[in-house]
């Protein structure tokens, strides 16, 4: 028997039906057509499905769809404002911090969560916070440079 869930995603009121066994990731991708959040492993080990749920950074594959009830969810699709990219997104592009781009949505969301929690991370703090986001293409070097530059720019109030 499916549950009827009411939630908020990127500021929009959304309703959906889901099986108790469905994950939030499956609901987002397969039922709501929001494919920006990616599946890399389905077991919370890669961070490609990172979303923010009631202010907390989580792997959507480890959250059940039914847990979205009355929650406020932020996904990568909500980071930019219309066509105006967020500073984090701009810095990722400027620093060439993506090659294939599959890990990028998860990293953008995780970086947003990092800088909301800690606007002045050291490089080591940034690397440890983002350790849950696997990247196989870049070796992380340009990603961390983008994150540190985004942090500095955001501190200046840009």
């Amino acid at each position, binding site marked *: 028997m499916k549950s009827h869930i009411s939630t908020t995603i990127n500021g929009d009121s959304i309703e959906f039906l889901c099986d108790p066994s469905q994950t939030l990731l499956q609901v987002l991708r397969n039922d709501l057509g929001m494919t920006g959040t990616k599946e890399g492993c389905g077991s919370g080990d890669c961070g490609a499905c990172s979303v923010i749920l009631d202010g907390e950074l989580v792997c959507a594959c480890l959250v059940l769809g039914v847990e979205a009830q009355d929650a406020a969810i932020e996904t990568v699709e909500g980071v930019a404002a219309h066509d105006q990219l967020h500073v984090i997104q701009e810095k990722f592009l400027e620093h060439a911090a993506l090659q*294939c781009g599959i890990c990028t949505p998860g990293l953008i969301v995780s970086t947003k969560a990092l800088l909301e929690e800690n606007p002045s991370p050291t490089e080591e703090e940034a690397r440890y916070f983002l350790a849950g986001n696997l990247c196989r293409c870049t070796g992380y070097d340009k990603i*961390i440079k983008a994150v540190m530059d985004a942090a500095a720019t955001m501190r200046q109030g840009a």
Partner: protein
Amino acid sequence: MSEAREFKHIGQRTIRPDGFDKVTGKANYGADLSLPGMIWGAILRSPHAHANIKKLDVSRAQASPDVLAIATFEDFPSVNAAAQRNGSQRKDLMDTACNIFANQKVLYHGHAVAAIAARSQAAAIAALDLIDVDYEVLTPVLNINDAISADAPILHETMMTQGLAEPATEASNVSARMELKKGDIEAGFAAADVIVERAYDTPTVHQGYIEPHATTVVFNDNGPSMIWCPTQGHFDVRARVAQLMNLELGQIKVVASEIGGGFGGKTTVYLEPVALILSKKSGRPVKMEMSRGDVFRASGPASASQSRIKIGAKMDGTITAMQATLHYEAGAFQGSPMGPGCMTVFTPYDVENLYVEGFDVVVNKPKVAAYRAPGAPQSEFAAEMAVNELAKKIGMDPIEFRLKNAAKEGTQTIYGPKLKVVGLVACLEAAKSSPHYNAPIPENVGRGLAAGFWFNIGGQSSVIINLNPDGTGTIIEGSPDIGGSRASMQMMAAEILGVAPSSLNPIVADTEHVAYNQTTGGSRTTFATGMAVVEAAEDIVEQLKARAAAMWNVTAEQVDFTDGVAHNLSGEDQLTLAEICASAEKTGGQISGRANINARGAGPSFAVHICDIKVDKETGKTDVVRYTAIQDAGKAIHPSYVEGQFQGGAVQGIGWALNEEYVYSKDGIMENAGFLDYRIPLASDLPEIEAIIVEVPNSFHPFGVRGVGETGIIPPLAAVGTAVAEAIGQPISSLPCSPPKILKLLMAAH
């Protein structure tokens, strides 16, 4: 040629044209396409590593209303007939088919046996229980020593070793032997003052792309069927599927989605033919996704290897002889990259006497696929470790030792040709003067250095450039973009046409909208597709000159085109590209340029890496504390993406050397088929990866480009291995240098 040229766009760090979609989640990858009426497929996989299929009974599944289609090996129309014929291509096709679906025998844990389509992914997976399979379990063969032993279980009854001195008389697990030589190896060792001889081994590793294989397909009786998939080569997907399904090429359209990593692992087919059969039988679009566990167990990892290296040198540092015996695991079917491994192993060295023997060995593991310079990381790891040990033994700095024996223009390789202009010496010199190499080695830290060589390839690329009446345009190419290559295509075309790169939109077209393009791989894209983009742009320049000439009533020879402007050499007039396009209707119609090439002249790329590693003597844990990757790019079109290739390759190599390996139970079950326990490097594991681009131009490319994608994974294995050996004061001969293994070495020393 390109040595002293000033470029307007080449060498800049532009924003990639596909970047906006990638940072906003709008870009569509392999699992992102859903279609109306779509159903889901799932695969039943073997629970045994080696077994005969005594019975495969789908009757219960057929009777179920939840099951909309079933597929097995029997559904490949042409393969059984093709199997009767001879020839290596048919063998390769048969092996591919038998890998996609087991044919009476399962050869690895996870080998696909059958597939079901149902209305949801969960329903399809649940319905797999309705298929009944009886297995006769056989003893699995899980490593080279077991595979080549006298009483080894035989995987393929018809496998007779090719390339032996005397023809093979009985079936074996060794599919082929290869032999390469130069000079007189006996005399070479006789002339040596010092010899190092050691055995090395490397484990099975996976490319580790974050995006699992996935596909959405629509079988169509009345027009081309459609396959949407993440692939490095959608034309080769089309060719494979056409062969397997007995279809003409024109009956299949393959759309390359954005791809979430490939590294060589997405150059063949696994799900696509299965999904197409299910779509044909159900009359519905079908979507399939591999789970992460299935990616590890049932896609194509890289060969495990065993190598024996022997190197001899004089006390003055001249290497007199180099010898290697290389064994590669091919997995369940023949075809490891043993050949390239043999060809590259000693190529960084100009040595008179060389002898290499290689063996391709089947084992009950998944069929290997390419992984970034396939075969070379394994063999060059062993060679570079031995070179470093020998340098140490004669008391010579590892860079000086390599400089003394470095391959350069005119060096005769073991596989035949003499090298043309190459950049190894330039990389060694850059390493010698690098800040890293000149920094003192910190306490408790070991430092390692290693070189690497890869051929790079050219091949077929087809490009069309269409200009619009306002002078903007589209570059239609067919090389799936695995690392930012569209930016480079934009820049190369802009350089020739003299327009802003952002005015040209590069797209990777599907198989219907552009002519054949060879797979993105072999470090070919910026080189070969770039060459085609340049030729197509030059084709446009000729047309622009002709149009301007027509407008001025002069001949085309009297028109010069520079920096986006046509000049009338016999007058004062000039016209911009945009102005010529605006008048195109008047002067004969719209302007398109094209090039269909088979690019020759790919230049090899050499690299040298330096690595500092700290080892915790109580736990065996390793930390990379400093890393520098130096590589010859010929000419870096977009330096950020060239650096990205160096850094990405380095980190994959670091993972291969420090932590990554397939762990198998004695029954051949992979015990760490997930990212938790198959441990790839994390952001917190690594320091900055300093990337130094060396440019020794390749004169065969209009801008001097050498491919860079692959070489970078080769040096890290021995740079890391040597650094660990230095840190613990003991030789390293086995990868990965994981904490339990290091701890064991440390404890044994006490």
